[in-house]
């Protein structure tokens, strides 16, 4: 098969161009997958509790979701165009292997999802007396959304772990590869976390923009609900991530080694720092939330003690096997000293090696989860015994919510890059080689700079959407 020569993207180069547009697309796509789950749960809670705040919350978020939907389609279109132009051989391979999925299922699901989404959004008022039917449309929307996610996960996971030892795998064998289900679950839980933190962040923005007490009361509550869902789902993410990584080892251990011990190891160190900070921030938010509850002051010592445990666990999670970003040090790293001297200061000796093993990391993860859960339980006890003063939360907490949203997006970007970089210079591991000169693994410095730039750009658009949907549009309306 002869292919057209790939076009060259100006300034950025092909890989960076695809990197940026793919990240944009996935951030919007995750938003319109994670947030509807949140909206439907909020609407259900309204039906059950008849607390109007839930109805308003669901409606507000749905408004933002509708705008984000167009941007998802737009970024998806640009992504597909660029992929065909910059990587024609890979595009041909995927079209060939996932023919029906690509030409039938995926467009079909997107069309059905679009119809359901607009039906759900615009039927809010007409169906306000028939909430059951409206909720049902919302549930259908989520089912189709999840099916779309699983659909695209098939291709993303196939690229890393295509079926082995099969001469002509069928479409289903390509779909149901080693990491498909782990990726599905990891992304699904990740999207709920993301949805929660996004709502928390929306609440924070609107709290900061609020001009009267009534609005602050509502947006304080909105931020609290967002954080609760976000952190609640995040508790499951470490185990989902562990299962996902374990499947890589089961499929081809060299992929796992490349991630955890070789050139991507420092990406995971960055992850350890960000995850530690996110758990700290979530618990600090709970702490600040407790401050607005009468009588909750008695629980201060136990929560403060919890913070010590969080730092301890975050430290254990972070401790690397060695302080160099490759499996064995490159020569330039120990310039001016012997390799042995370099290793003495940068590598854990055998008797301390256990600190870098999974047993240590799992212990740290369990501690983080337990402390967060305990703090939430204490919070609930305090709520039962006292009265919450909504709108009276420390202003600092709103910055914490924005920080959590920012960190979540940043981490999603970085870990998405890891998933793509793990197969080294292959488009499809061991099946289709990436022959471009850009197929090397970039440094963490480069990846983190790009990640920050993408996060900033996404944030700018996101703030604009929130402003347009929930401030400007509303006021004019």
């Amino acid at each position, binding site marked *: 098969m002869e292919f057209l020569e790939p076009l060259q993207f100006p300034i950025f180069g092909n890989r960076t161009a695809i990197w940026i547009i793919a990240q944009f697309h996935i951030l919007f796509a995750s938003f319109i997958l994670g947030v509807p789950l949140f909206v439907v749960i909020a609407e259900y809670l309204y039906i059950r509790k008849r607390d109007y705040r839930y109805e308003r919350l669901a409606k507000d978020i749905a408004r933002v979701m509708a705008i984000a939907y167009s941007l998802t389609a737009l970024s998806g279109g640009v992504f597909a165009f660029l992929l065909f132009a910059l990587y024609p051989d890979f595009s041909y391979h995927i079209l060939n292997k996932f023919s029906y999925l690509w030409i039938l299922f995926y467009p079909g699901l997107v069309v059905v999802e679009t119809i359901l989404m607009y039906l759900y959004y615009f039927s809010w008022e007409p169906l306000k007396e028939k909430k059951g039917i409206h909720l049902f449309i919302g549930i259908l929307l989520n089912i189709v959304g999840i099916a779309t996610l699983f659909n695209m996960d098939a291709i993303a996971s196939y690229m890393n772990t295509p079926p082995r030892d099969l001469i002509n795998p069928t479409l289903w064998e390509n779909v149901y590869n080693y990491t498909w289900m782990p990726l599905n679950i990891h992304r699904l839980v990740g999207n709920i976390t993301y949805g929660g933190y996004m709502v928390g962040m929306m609440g924070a923005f609107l709290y*900061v*923009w609020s*001009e009267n007490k009534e609005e602050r009361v509502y947006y304080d509550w909105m931020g609290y609900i967002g954080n609760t869902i976000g952190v609640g789902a995040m508790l499951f993410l470490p185990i989902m991530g562990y299962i996902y990584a374990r499947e890589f080892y089961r499929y*081809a*251990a*060299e992929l*796992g*080694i490349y991630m955890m*011990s070789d*050139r991507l190891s*420092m990406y995971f160190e*960055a992850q350890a720092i*960000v995850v530690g900070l996110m758990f700290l921030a979530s618990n*600090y938010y709970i702490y600040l939330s407790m*401050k607005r509850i009468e009588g909750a*002051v*008695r629980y201060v*010592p*136990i929560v403060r*003690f919890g913070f*010590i*445990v969080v*730092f301890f666990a975050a430290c254990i999670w*972070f*401790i690397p*096997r060695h*302080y160099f*970003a490759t499996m*064995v040090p*490159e020569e*330039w790293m120990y310039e001016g000293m012997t390799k042995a001297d370099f290793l003495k*200061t*940068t*590598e*854990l*000796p*055998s*008797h*301390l*090696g256990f600190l870098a*093993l999974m*047993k*240590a990391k*799992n*212990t740290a993860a369990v*501690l983080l989860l337990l402390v967060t859960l305990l703090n939430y339980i204490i919070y609930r006890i305090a709520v039962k015994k006292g009265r919450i003063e909504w709108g009276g939360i420390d*202003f600092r907490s709103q*910055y914490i919510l*924005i*920080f959590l949203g920012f*960190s979540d997006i940043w981490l999603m970007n970085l870990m998405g890059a890891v998933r793509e970089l793990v197969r080294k*210079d292959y488009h499809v591991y061991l099946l289709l080689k990436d022959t471009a*000169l850009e197929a*090397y693994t*970039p440094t963490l410095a480069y990846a*983190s700079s790009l990640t*920050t730039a993408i*996060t*900033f750009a996404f*944030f700018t658009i996101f703030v604009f959407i929130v402003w347009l949907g929930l401030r400007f549009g509303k006021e004019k309306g």
Partner: protein
Amino acid sequence: MELWKKNKLKLISLIAFNLLIWIINSFLYSLPVVFKVAFTVFTTGGFLILALIDIFPIESWQGKRIFKNLILTLIYGTIFLGILWLYTAYYKFPAMFKMTIIVYTLLTILFLILIDLKPLKEKTGIRAVNSLLFLFLIMGGGYTFMGWALPQFDPAYEIERLKPKKFFIEEADEETILSVGARVFKDYECFNCHDIEPGGIPKRGPALAAVDLGDRKKIRESVVDPRKEIAKGYEKELKTMPDYYETQIEKNYLEALIRYLENIGKVRITTEMMPEGWWTDPKILRDGKDIFEGIKNPDVACSVCHGKDGIPLMTEAADLRDVAEISKLSDADLFKVVSEGRPDTPMAAWKDYLSNEDIWKVIAYINMFHHGGRAEVHKKGEGIPAVAINQPVVPVIPE
């Protein structure tokens, strides 16, 4: 008495929980003692605080407590830092790791001091926008700085490896030629029809070690023009072997394949038995050490998981000092583990990174770990056990 009555149930739960943790983490999911102790310290500490909450009530979040908190946190923090310093010195933590632990501890102290600052004043209008922009700057700047501050690698090393290697047979040594030839044999899947093992099974083509392949010229002819002369007994397979290899395989690589095939009957690099004399050959062991420690090829560094001194450094990595386990394996078993990996474990299949020769070399070196560091012939069921679980074994290669 009242305190006892109130907390009796909590205390019993605490003890039961800790016992459970110790049992689980001793038998089901083994943890080092230091973690088990940490769990107990944290749960007991949490229990004590919960029990004492009512005895020493706290009246307010701020006020005089800020100063008191500051002093107390500094005192406790300094004591704790001192203990940590001694602990890390006693257990000989390398400098970078000592720094990591101290930095995390300092951050904890700082956080605990700052946690009860007065509530932030609410901001509106342009001040709110400014504060948000400042926050974005701090977050983005902080994460980017983190990315730059963590250790880096030089992409040039990988780029160099990714470049298509030019292989010229005139410039290559014998070992490289044979290794490239073996790779060509594998890449073009010749093994689908031709077995190369001694005593191999004839498939659609003859088992190559069992027949006389002739001289170099004859082998070339069999590869590039296979239909010219058909091996006896394979007349029905006249058109089975493709006749386009001369145009498909670059001439240097084709020559390497021919040299490899020429040596099949002589070198006897099989996947069944360690070549004669290699278990104790110092040159082979030195080569094996270079592969084991990632000196020859940084993509293959067995020591990263199995430890330079045999103490495993990765979850589920095999303990190479373990006589009971390693001596169970025959030569062929050992070869298979290194070549194909162990299913459902982190042990990778290294056949795409190592030639058969290199696999045997590294096995020869690995063999020293369960022989107390000495170079000895591997025999099933034999070896010298390490004295203690954490005792390192340093292989000594004979001169």
